[in-house]
């Protein structure tokens, strides 16, 4: 945009101001490049054959692009003792993330609804205590949670990981939904009560249909958190139930034979893609949802 077209802004076009502007764009451009470079290197490395990587020129464009590293990363690469690629673990992650996101979002929505529209003595205190959950470091609960999963017979299972993520996610999802519902007029609920609807009916028919923005926020947040989780994944999973993040770690750290950087990069891309896809598809709702309460007034 040229300076002339900027509406309602008056600027003096002195040489000094111009020089500053050029400098500003130069800095921004350099910063953008610095942030993009790792991604560029990753993508390029993942489609180079190993022979092009070993000379050591990271930034060289691939001469003979190939998808072989991706195929190997998905189905053949060794993660520890097994050589089955990260594909199977990718599905593990899906099988953990989908129910965990769905359950934590649903429970958060119900909590937020109950805490705002069916206030009871101490409901504010309960909300404050739940907020604590957002600030508890994961490491603190590693051992007690392992014990609990053992008692429940869920150790090393996908269900166990789902439970852990749901429990941790509820603090955040409750916060999201509570703050969203607090802005929705209580009179709506009063009207529905007079019309004869009960707790769940009001939630299902009146509140949930207007909750799309905050559901998107909750889903993106939870999806990203759970998909990217490594600590719980490595602590509570068995061989067959490892999520893709753990498999990626194992793949990269496997030390038999030559280091296949291209396969490592491809595997890392595979592990990172879903969160990117979710954000690209629903990102605009994410921003909208986060600011929904703020701009409505």
């Amino acid at each position, binding site marked *: 945009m040229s300076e002339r077209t900027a509406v309602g802004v008056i600027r003096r076009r002195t040489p000094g101001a111009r020089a500053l502007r050029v400098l500003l764009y130069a800095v921004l451009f350099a910063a953008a490049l610095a942030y993009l470079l790792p991604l560029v290197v990753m993508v390029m490395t993942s489609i180079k054959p190993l022979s092009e990587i070993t000379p050591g020129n990271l930034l060289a464009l691939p001469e003979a692009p190939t998808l072989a590293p991706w195929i190997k990363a998905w189905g053949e690469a060794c993660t520890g003792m097994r050589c089955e690629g990260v594909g199977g673990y990718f599905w593990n992650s899906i099988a953990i993330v989908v129910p965990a996101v769905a359950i934590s979002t649903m429970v958060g929505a119900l909590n937020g609804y109950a805490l705002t529209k069916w206030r009871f003595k101490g409901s504010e205190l309960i909300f404050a205590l739940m907020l604590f959950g957002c600030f508890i470091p994961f490491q603190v609960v590693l051992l007690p949670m392992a014990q609990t999963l053992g008692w429940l017979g869920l150790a090393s299972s996908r269900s166990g990981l789902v439970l852990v993520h749901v429990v941790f996610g509820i603090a955040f999802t409750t916060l999201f939904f509570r703050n969203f519902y607090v802005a929705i*007029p209580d*009179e*709506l609920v*009063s*009207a*529905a*009560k*007079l*019309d*004869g*609807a*009960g707790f769940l*009916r009001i939630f299902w*028919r*009146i509140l949930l*249909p*207007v909750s799309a923005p905050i559901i998107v926020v909750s889903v993106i947040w939870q999806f990203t958190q759970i998909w990217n989780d490594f600590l719980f994944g490595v602590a509570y999973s068995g061989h067959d139930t490892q999520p893709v993040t753990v498999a990626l770690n194992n793949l990269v750290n496997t030390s038999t034979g030559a280091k296949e950087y291209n396969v490592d990069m491809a595997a890392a891309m595979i592990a990172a893609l879903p969160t990117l896809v979710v954000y690209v598809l629903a990102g605009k709702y994410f921003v909208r949802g986060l600011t929904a309460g703020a701009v409505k007034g």
Partner: protein
Amino acid sequence: MSALEIQHLCKDFSSTQVLKDVSLAIDSGEFLILVGPSGCGKSTLMNAIAGLEPVTSGKILIGGEDVTWRTPAERDIAMVFQSYALYPSMTVRGNIAFGLEMRKVPKVEREQAVERVADLLQISHLLDRKPSQLSGGQRQRVAMGRALAREPQIYLFDEPLSNLDAKLRVEMRTEIKKLHQRLGTTIVYVTHDQIEAMTLADRIAVMRDGQIQQLGTPNEIYNDPVNVFVAGFMGSPSMNFISARLEKDDTTWQLHISDPEQGAELSLPWPVDRVTEAMVACQGQSVLLGLRPEHFAEAGDQRSGHQQAARLEALVSVVEPTGADVLINLGLGGNEVVARVGPDCRVAPGERLALSVDMRRAVLFGQQGGQRLA
């Protein structure tokens, strides 16, 4: 049997008493308005009737049945909210039919009810729209439609017109009155707008500090207020209160108003046939004379027809023509009083104006506590 009866209702919020021993009864088909300044408990009383707020003590009976501890759904009432509270995700049709659907009314009957209500309120063309696509007045109609569809025993209106602009408010007021005349429904209506109260109500309950100050017809409330608060709250511009000394000489009663500016005293005669026992007790004491702006008239104005009218003269400070009449601010006995005179009055600020006062309609209050004397 009363459609709605409230017996000794009390409501405490932690340490504050919001409702203090409120009792009232409404006949079937009656239009009752609860009016009062904000914080007087009128909305709390309405929420208690609706079942949205549990009460501390007392009883609520609807159609003779004790519903004090029933849920809102079990009380057979419908409510129109100040914010309309239309369900945002449903169409107008869905909004109107929701209450029937919750009560498991068959679909065909629901459709009929929606059609009937939409016809009545002239919103048939809006049935497939969402609330966000409606104007304020249309939302107001839908909110009433939602209440009407269920045909409950009692309708509750919680300041339903206060979100509308002035013109629309007057239109909808008439609309509500027409609707009530046509359907003969029992309505409890909360407002802080005393004109709404006067124009709509069969009876008005004026509330203050959690108590009903006076319950009566608009005429009673306006012309026969029980205390200074009710007298001052109803009417716009509000009633003038003038400090005066009550004296009796031989057979006539006089109100002496001292005027510090003139140094002279002004005397107004009190009609002999309106002397009460309470007045006798206050003889020689200071009382409050209540005069509504329309109790004044330009001296010699034929229109007023005041007989037995007392005369006085006062300095004009402000003249406000409204078109239909002229409001004049006057200095009287050190007080600023407002008089409503005919539209032809051509007085200017700074001039003195001769007025007649209709003492037959004047009211007297005690200086302490503001209780009515006569």
